[in-house]
C-alpha cells in the first residue's frame, strides 16, 4: 500500500444488496494505525454495512479492502483477526464470563496458564475482577458491555470494531462507558473503528469522524473541524445545532462572499461550498456564535423578533424570527446579568462572517 501507517484501506468499495441500488457508493478510506475512527451517520447511511464488510460478514460488491496492506476480500471472518463488539454484546449465554473471555484464546490454542493470566488481566482492565465465574445473564447491561469489550480485546488484535456498543445503555452509563472505552483505546494503542448514530458519542471519543450519508462519506475530519468547518449542509445539520438561512450568492471576494436572502437582507459569509455568483446557497450558523446587541465592527447585523425564551440554567435559548426564518435559535450564556429580554421584543443581533458558512443549497 501507498501508506504504511494505514491499518485498513477501503479502495473504491461498493455494496449493493439487491443488485440495483448501492448502499455504499465508491468508498475510499484509510484508517491509521492506532486511530479511533468513528463512522457516524443516520440509519441506512451505509456505516454499518462498511463495518460488516470490514469484519467479513458482508462481501463487497466491487472494490477491495486492505488490512495491514493485504487484500482481505477473500479472507473469511475467522481468519481476519479483528476483534468486534456487537450492539447486543453477543456474549455466549451458556459460558461464564471467564469462559467467554477464554474462548478466543482457546481457539488460538494458547496454554491454559497463559489463558488464565490474560483473562484475569482483561477483567481487571474493565474493572470486573472477581466476576469471572458469573454467567452473562447475572450481570447488568453495563457489566455485560464491559465483558464484551474485554472479550474483543483479550486476544490482542490490532483492530477492534464496535457496532453501536452503547446503544442499549442509559444516558449516564453511556457517558461513563464512552470515557472508559476511550481510555482503554489510549492505553492499549489498538485501532478502533466505531459505528454510531449518536453525534455526541462520536465527538467525545474519536480521533477522526467519517460522516456517512446516502452511502457516501460526506466529511472525514477531527471532531473540532467537523463542528467548526462543516464542508456541506448535511454535515452542518447533522453535527450539533445549526441555523439555516437560504439565499443567493451576490458577489465573491476572496475567502468570503456576499449573500442576499429572500427578504433582501445581505449577509457576508465564509465561502465553503458555493458554485458561483447567482447560485443558491444555504448559510449555516451555530446558535452560540450569535451575539445580541453587538458593538461596532460586526460583519453581519440584522434585527429579529424574540418568539420564545427558554431558560436552561447555564444558558438561555432564544427562538427568533430572523429574515423570514422563525426557527432561528440563539444561545446566550447565563452570565448573571439580568437582561431585559421579553417575548415579542425586536432586538439587533450579529455574527462574524467567519462563523457563517456558505454551503450547498438544500431546500
Amino acid at each position, binding site marked *: 500500500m501507498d501508506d504504511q501507517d494505514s491499518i485498513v484501506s477501503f479502495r473504491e468499495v461498493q455494496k449493493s444488496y439487491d443488485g440495483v441500488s448501492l448502499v455504499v457508493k465508491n468508498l475510499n478510506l484509510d484508517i491509521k494505525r492506532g486511530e479511533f475512527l468513528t463512522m457516524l451517520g443516520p440509519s441506512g447511511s451505509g456505516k454499518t454495512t462498511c463495518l460488516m464488510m470490514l*469484519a*467479513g*460478514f458482508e462481501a463487497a460488491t466491487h472494490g477491495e479492502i486492505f488490512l495491514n496492506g493485504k487484500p482481505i476480500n477473500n479472507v*473469511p*471472518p*475467522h*481468519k*481476519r*483477526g*479483528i*476483534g*468486534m463488539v*456487537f*450492539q*447486543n454484546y*453477543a*456474549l*455466549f*449465554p*451458556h459460558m461464564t464470563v471467564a469462559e467467554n473471555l477464554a*474462548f*478466543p484464546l482457546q*481457539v*488460538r490454542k494458547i496454554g491454559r496458564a497463559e489463558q488464565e493470566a490474560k483473562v484475569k488481566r482483561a477483567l481487571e482492565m474493565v474493572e470486573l475482577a472477581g466476576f469471572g465465574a458469573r*454467567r*452473562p*445473564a*447475572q450481570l447488568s447491561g453495563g457489566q455485560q458491555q464491559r465483558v464484551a469489550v474485554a*472479550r*474483543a480485546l483479550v*486476544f490482542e488484535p490490532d483492530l477492534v*470494531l464496535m457496532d453501536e456498543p452503547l446503544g442499549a445503555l442509559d444516558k449516564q452509563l453511556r457517558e461513563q462507558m464512552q470515557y472508559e472505552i476511550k481510555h482503554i483505546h489510549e492505553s492499549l494503542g489498538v485501532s478502533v473503528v466505531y459505528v454510531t448514530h449518536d453525534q455526541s458519542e462520536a465527538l467525545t471519543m474519536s480521533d477522526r469522524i467519517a460522516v456517512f450519508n446516502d452511502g457516501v462519506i460526506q466529511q472525514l475530519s477531527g471532531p473540532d473541524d467537523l463542528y467548526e468547518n462543516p464542508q456541506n449542509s448535511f454535515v452542518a445539520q447533522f453535527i450539533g445545532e445549526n441555523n439555516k438561512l437560504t439565499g443567493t450568492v451576490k458577489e465573491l471576494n476572496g475567502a468570503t462572499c456576499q449573500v442576499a436572502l429572500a427578504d433582501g437582507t445581505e449577509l457576508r459569509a465564509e465561502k465553503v461550498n458555493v458554485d458561483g455568483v447567482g447560485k443558491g446557497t444555504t448559510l449555516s450558523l451555530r446558535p452560540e456564535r450569535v451575539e445580541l446587541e453587538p458593538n461596532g465592527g460586526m460583519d453581519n447585523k440584522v434585527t429579529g423578533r424574540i418568539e420564545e425564551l427558554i431558560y436552561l440554567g447555564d444558558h438561555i435559548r432564544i427562538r427568533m424570527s430572523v429574515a423570514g426564518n422563525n426557527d432561528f435559535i440563539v444561545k446566550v450564556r447565563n452570565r448573571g446579568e439580568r437582561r431585559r429580554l421579553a417575548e415579542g421584543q425586536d432586538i439587533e443581533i450579529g455574527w462574524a462572517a467567519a462563523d457563517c458558512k456558505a454551503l450547498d443549497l438544500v431546500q
Partner: protein
Amino acid sequence: MSGLPPYASAGQRTWYYGFRILCALIFFFLIFPIMVIIPLSFNAQDFFTFTREMLAFEPAGYSLKHYEDFFTNPDWQQALTNSFLIAPVATLLATGIGTLAAIGLSQSHVPFRPAIMAILISPMIVPLIISAAGMYFFYSRIGLQGTYWGVVLAHAALGTPFVIITVTATLVGFDRSLVRAAASMGADPVKTFFRVQMPLIIPGVVSGALFAFITSFDEVVVVLFLGSASQKTLPWQMFTGLREQISPTILAVASVMVALSIALLTTLEMLRRRSERLRGLSPA
C-alpha cells in the same frame, strides 16, 4: 382462596367453575384409558377385567405374573431386543438429519425453504398407511424390504419431522450474532457449531430425539409392512398378541412403555428448565 375478583358477574362465576370442570373432563378423557391399564396389568387372573378380589383390594387378587411372563417369555424378549436395536439407531439418524436440516433451513439464503420444509415434514402429515405402503413398494425394489436397515431407515424418516420442528423452534430464539461473535474471535464454522450453536440448541435437539425415539418405539404399521419375522418389534408383538393369544401380558408391556414415556418426558422437562436457566430466563 378463590381467584375470582369481587366484581365478577354471575356469568363470570359460572364460567370460572365451568372451565375447571371442563378441564377435569378433558384430562379424564385423555388419561383414564391409560390409567386403567396399569392396575389391570397386576391382575392375578388371565382376564382383561377387574376381578372381585381386585376390587376388594385383596392381595390375592394381584400378582406380578404378567410382568414375569414379559421378562421371561422369549417371544417378548426378542421383540424387546429388536425394539431396542431399531429405535436408538433410527433416533440417531433422525436426529442427525433433522438437526442439520433445521439449521440449513434457518439460513435466509437457502432457496425454496417452504417447499423443502414441506417435503421433510410430510411423513408426519401423510397417513401412516400410505407412507408404509409407499415404502413397501420402494424398499422392495431396492432390496431393503424385510431387512433391519429397511425398518431403521423408515423409522428415521418418520422421526425426522419431529426433530426438524423442535430444532427449528429452538433456532428461532437463537441469536445469530453469537455465530458472528465466534467468527470474529477466530473460531471456524465447525468449532462455532460445536462450541456455540450446539450447546444452545441442545434442548431442541434432545426433545426432537425423544419424539423420534418414541415414534420408532411405538410404531406398528410401517414395521408390519417392511419388517420380516426377525424385525418383530414390541408394538408388533403386542398387535399379534391381541389378535392371537389375548394375554394380559400386553397390559404389563403397555405399563412398562407408559413408565418409559413418563421417564423420557421428565428428562425433557428437566432439560428445558436447565436451558431456561442458562439463558437467564429464570433465576439460577
